[in-house]
């Protein structure tokens, strides 16, 4: 019957629907957030989380998992607040080196067939250690241009929304529409088929890890642009948030089934979930819990949709 909405469409719309419900609830509770400045404040901190989630999505797309993205973002934030500010050339070189290390990890994991969860676990200690060496005590200063960009107030549409849309569109076009993007996703779906078709699995993994490194570096820079200073522990919780964001956005752990647009929406939903409770004027103690609860609710809805699909 045409009366029943297509479950597949429903599942694709679920992340956007969750975000819309959350946003509507916040607007209803606090109408002042509906203004330009309200939205700006509400979504500002979403940009680094969105970028970290995109980084995690690249890794999950090839059936791996990155437990180090939080400490990696912390490190790139520390580099951005120190070297990138004092000696831009050194700063850019250091960030490029970080991306190269990420690409190397992809190669190591593929060549030795290592579990990514353990390698990135080890790397999380390494990144954190390097971050402490770069910036032993909290401080540093964001480069002028970075701060200018992150506090930019374009007309009509708040910057966080523009940034999120641009990130979503760029990654979506690159990964979902481009021919090589299909190959990259195929590595997560059926690696052997991709290999038999003559594509290099090694190259694909290296590219995906390098892309994650680039997105993570941007996340660190965006974070410093917002906070103006950094410390070595600044983004440690991004590891868990980014995994949650990818799953919330409709991604799955295996099979290369990810959605860049969904991941961006998932990250924004998690950011809003934290502020939602403060608008409810409930106890701020439950902020983290609210993120957990929203994650569970959305996943439960997905199960219901999948069941409906199974019955048809």
């Amino acid at each position, binding site marked *: 019957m045409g009366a029943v909405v297509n479950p597949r469409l429903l599942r694709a719309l679920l992340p956007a629907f969750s975000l819309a419900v959350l946003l509507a609830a916040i607007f209803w509770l606090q109408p002042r957030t509906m203004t330009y400045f309200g939205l700006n404040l509400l979504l500002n901190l979403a940009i680094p989380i969105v970028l970290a989630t995109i980084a995690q999505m690249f890794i999950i797309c090839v059936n791996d*998992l990155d*437990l180090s993205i939080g400490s990696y973002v912390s490190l790139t934030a520390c580099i951005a607040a120190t070297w990138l500010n004092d000696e831009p050339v050194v700063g850019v070189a250091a960030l490029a080196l970080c991306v190269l290390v990420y690409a190397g990890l992809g190669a*190591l994991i593929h060549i*030795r*067939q*290592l*579990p990514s*969860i*353990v*390698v990135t*676990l*080890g*790397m*999380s*200690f*390494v*990144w*954190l*250690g*390097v*971050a*402490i*060496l770069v910036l*032993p005590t909290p401080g540093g200063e964001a480069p002028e241009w970075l701060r200018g960009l992150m506090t930019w107030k374009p007309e009509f549409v708040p910057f966080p929304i523009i940034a999120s849309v641009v990130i979503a569109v760029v990654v979506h076009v690159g990964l979902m529409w481009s021919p090589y993007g299909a190959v990259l996703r195929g590595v997560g779906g059926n690696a052997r088929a991709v290999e038999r078709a003559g594509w290099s699995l090694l190259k694909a993994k290296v590219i995906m890890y390098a892309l994650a490194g680039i997105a993570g570096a941007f996340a660190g820079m965006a974070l410093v642009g917002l906070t103006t200073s950094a410390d070595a522990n600044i983004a440690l919780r991004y590891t*868990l948030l980014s*995994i*949650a964001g990818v*799953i919330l956005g409709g991604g799955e*752990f295996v099979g290369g089934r990810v959605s860049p647009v969904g991941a961006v929406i998932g990250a924004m939903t998690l950011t809003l979930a934290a502020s939602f409770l403060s608008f409810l004027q409930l*106890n701020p*103690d*439950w*902020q*983290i*819990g*609210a*993120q*957990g*609860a929203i*994650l*569970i609710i959305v*996943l*439960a809805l*997905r*199960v219901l949709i*999948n069941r409906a699909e199974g019955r048809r």
Partner: protein
Amino acid sequence: MSVRAIVAKPWVWSYVAAFAVWLATIAFTGGQGAGGVLTAALTFGTFFALVAIGQMFVITLGPGNVDLSIPATMTLAGTIAMKAMAESDAMIPVGLGLALLTGLCVGILNFGLILLLRIPPIIATLSSSFIVQSTAIWWNRGLRIKPPPALGDFATTNVMGVPVLAVLVIIIAAVMHVVLARTVFGRSVTAIGQNQRAAWLAGVKVERIRFLTYVLCALFSSLCGFLLASFSGGAALNMGQEYLLTSIAVVVIGGTSVAGGFGNVPGLWGASLFLFLLVTMLNTYGLGAGPRLILTGAIIILVIVAASYRRQRE
């Protein structure tokens, strides 16, 4: 058992590494504090080993199985127990009971989410950990309640340089070794990790075993939270923080297969001692937190790379 058979055990290397690091430390100090370092290693290794036992059973269930709620469970159990006991010796059994009850509830919540939402355990335990951590923050209200005097003394007592807690956890580890190697439950966990479908066809009650494993892991986390809070003079909201990554690191260094199906308990103690002694050694050499973390991470990666070569030979 011949020498060769012992060397072939994956867990031997964690002890070899721990011993080497210990030697390197006391060589630097000229033999001074050799015993004290061991006592400290046993003390702190106890807490690592305790959570790692639970994590090892979970990881042995197979790919995708890992418990991310350990730190939150530790914090909540420690917080609830300390508050309930209110520094009264008479309330110690109640506090212990409440801590274990907390673990039981978190375990049931974790597996409930895995089963009902059909989501990977990593996401289920992640989302439940958010809620558990919030509950701990709300229940604690920033208070730092001391443990009852008798419990605090018990947790910090050493007999001839050996901490009582370490003896307790060594006994627990021995029991869990037998459970893993000799009981139907332990063999079922291993069987599921090797091939879940084959295990199911062979009549293993897969879901029941997985349920018990997640509850077991949460129980060990809550016991660890209870003991750690007693040892360190009260529960703190960040007390479990380092135990998430450490519990996984201990399991891996201890020679348990990350892909599941091959677990072992003795290696957990070796790896716990090794990780603590490594930090001590680097401290003794005067290295700061930065190089220490870098080396810890590098060693975890080296261990897993070395294991991949061993796997290739077999």
